[in-house]
């Protein structure tokens, strides 16, 4: 059975065009681009082409592109570089809803004596720009703010954020892993200093990413070794994946309109259909600007893992913001930061679509999910008994 794959914010399938672009570099074109012979040198040409394609997709200069192994590496490289190049500055500003690639790094840096300000969000997942402005200090080394949230799809107003941060002369990094390919990005107009993207979120394979570093931005390499990437990221290039990423960015740019029309329409149909069919459901971040492909929907009185496992029986792939799926015990840090009530947070499901999503996938969810929720609610001691639910819980106030 072909799954109804609606978990594209987790990872995407490799586009067929991307796969065919990369295959030669896994077979006959195996030369090392750093070699002096023309067999390797030819591969170097394809690397240059891939770099140019990525640069075109982001409207920047190819010299500003560093190929990395993933989004996490790019985030780490940007933030650590900013700290190393400005040793007198010990303060970092970020948000409470970042991906663990930034969140955990900042927590780690706190143990090394750096001070971190984590900005909160409102109930729709939006940042308070005044609070951002107030958080900036003389010793702020970097502001790291994601472009779009992986769980809710909520988009932060990066142009405004950049305006504030750059007017104070502070470095700005954005984790744009979820945004690239879904939102048009024009780095000639968006004055961020660093931007991270990841291949496998836009139909390239896993294990390749990009760090954009604006020309003139001080940079200290994270990986030190050979002279690859102009000495900014050592290690023999993952040529096949880099070529793939170049093609994937090119495709994403060509087809970005589709994300915002067909994919968005499918997402909206799914959203409307579920809200209509399932009482006591709501959209996390529904009041904010969101990515066109992401739907985080919360069902009261049921628990996410149980929903996922039952959907899995019908070949529906999605994710949950619930604690039980992750091995931690509290619901997702993003939903908690938004103050989503516990009654909803535990029953949150994320559907993330892509250009490969079909109408049949959406139909399947609309057909199978409402009875699943009804079935679990029939099992639940809380359902439909608002007063009783509150009384039941003896240790917490809601």
């Amino acid at each position, binding site marked *: 059975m072909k799954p109804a794959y609606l978990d594209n914010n987790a990872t995407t399938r490799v586009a067929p065009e991307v796969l065919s672009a990369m295959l030669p570099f896994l077979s006959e074109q195996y030369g090392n681009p750093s070699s002096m012979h023309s067999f390797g040198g030819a591969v170097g040409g394809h690397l240059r082409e891939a770099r140019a394609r990525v640069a075109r997709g982001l409207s920047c200069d190819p010299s500003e592109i560093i190929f990395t192994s993933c989004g996490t590496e790019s985030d780490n490289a940007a933030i650590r570089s900013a700290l190393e190049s400005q040793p007198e500055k010990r303060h970092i500003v970020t948000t409470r809803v970042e991906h663990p690639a930034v969140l955990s790094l900042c927590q780690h840096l706190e143990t090394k004596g750096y001070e971190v300000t984590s900005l909160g969000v409102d109930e729709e997942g939006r940042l308070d720009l005044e609070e951002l402005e107030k958080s900036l200090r003389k010793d702020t080394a970097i502001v790291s703010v994601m472009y779009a949230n992986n769980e809710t799809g909520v988009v932060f107003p990066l142009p405004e954020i950049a305006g504030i941060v750059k007017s104070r002369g502070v470095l700005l990094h954005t984790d744009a892993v979820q945004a690239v390919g879904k939102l048009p990005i024009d780095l000639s107009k968006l004055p961020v200093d660093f931007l991270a993207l990841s291949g496998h979120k836009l139909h390239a394979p896993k294990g390749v990413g990009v760090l954009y570093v604006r020309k003139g931005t001080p940079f200290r390499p994270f990986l030190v070794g050979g002279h690859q990437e102009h000495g900014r990221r050592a290690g023999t290039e993952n040529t096949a994946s880099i070529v793939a990423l170049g093609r994937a960015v090119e495709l994403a740019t060509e087809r970005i309109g589709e994300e915002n029309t067909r994919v968005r329409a499918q997402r909206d149909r799914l959203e409307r259909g579920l809200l209509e069919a399932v009482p006591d459901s709501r959209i996390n971040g529904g009041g904010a600007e969101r990515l066109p492909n992401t739907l985080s929907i919360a069902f009261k*009185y*049921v*628990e*996410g*893992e*149980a929903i996922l*496992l*039952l959907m899995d*029986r019908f070949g529906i792939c999605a994710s949950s913001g*619930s*604690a*039980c*799926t992750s*091995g*931690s*015990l*509290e*619901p997702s840090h993003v939903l908690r930061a938004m103050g989503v009530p*516990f*009654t909803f947070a*535990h029953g949150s499901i994320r559907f993330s679509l892509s250009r490969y999503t079909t109408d049949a996938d959406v139909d399947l969810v609309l057909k199978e999910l409402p009875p699943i929720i009804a079935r679990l609610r*029939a*099992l*639940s*001691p*809380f359902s439909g008994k608002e007063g009783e*639910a509150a009384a*039941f*819980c*003896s*240790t*917490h106030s*809601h």
Partner: protein
Amino acid sequence: MWEYTDKVMDHFLNPRNAGEMENPSAMGEVGSLACGDALRLFLKIDDTGVIQDAKFQTFGCASAIASSSVLTELLKGKTVAEAEKLTNKDIAAYLGGLPKEKMHCSVMGEEALAAALKNWRGEAAPAPAAEGRLVCKCFGVTEETIRRAIRENDLKTVEDITNFTKAGGGCGECAPELEEILADERARMASAAPGGKRMTNIQRVMLVTKVIDEEIRPALKKDGGDIELVDIEGTKVVVSLRGACVGCPSSQLTLKGLVEKRLQEAVDPDIRIEEVRP
């Protein structure tokens, strides 16, 4: 994705005895919405104290639903006295095991059963504070619950405690306290371990040495005697009496009545004393 046994999946997909019960003889509730899982257990108990029927309502993940379903199956037909002996281990064992991070789901079953039986006896359901001090505020877990989980499941790390009770799984503020409770409860278990089954040889040697040094020797010294520990092999403790004790007509009484008895109490009821002459 969690690795669930077929049994867990079966009871999750086809829960037995789900739903509300009309006029139950007893009802027990545990958990909360905030914690992400909750269970309401209904029992019908006849005049002879036999559980005729059991039903449940659960809010939670697959393990929570499966644990509740199994609990009701295990309870049907049991007497109250038999039911009282049921623990989370029985639930987990029946399911062919649960991922360790999900053991708290089985603990929830045990707690709901305890609450239901209390309810049946007409005792008030325990308020969380009444059952001991609240240690983990995130999940409302009391000291008593934590200690019981440590004892009953032989927990060895704070992570284990979190897996079994959820305590420590939120903000983490209670972690230092969990550490203390764990150390204390493990020490109590070591000194109370029946038959020394849970004690390692080294633990037993250390405990015997401690009891001899701190209690037995000072008592003997008062009368001018002394004792030396010669060897320990399993539960056989070889000692040698010294000073005034040597040749004392009541030395056998001292060995049996004082040394052996005290070591049996403090360390292991199976301990036997043997004397070697110096």
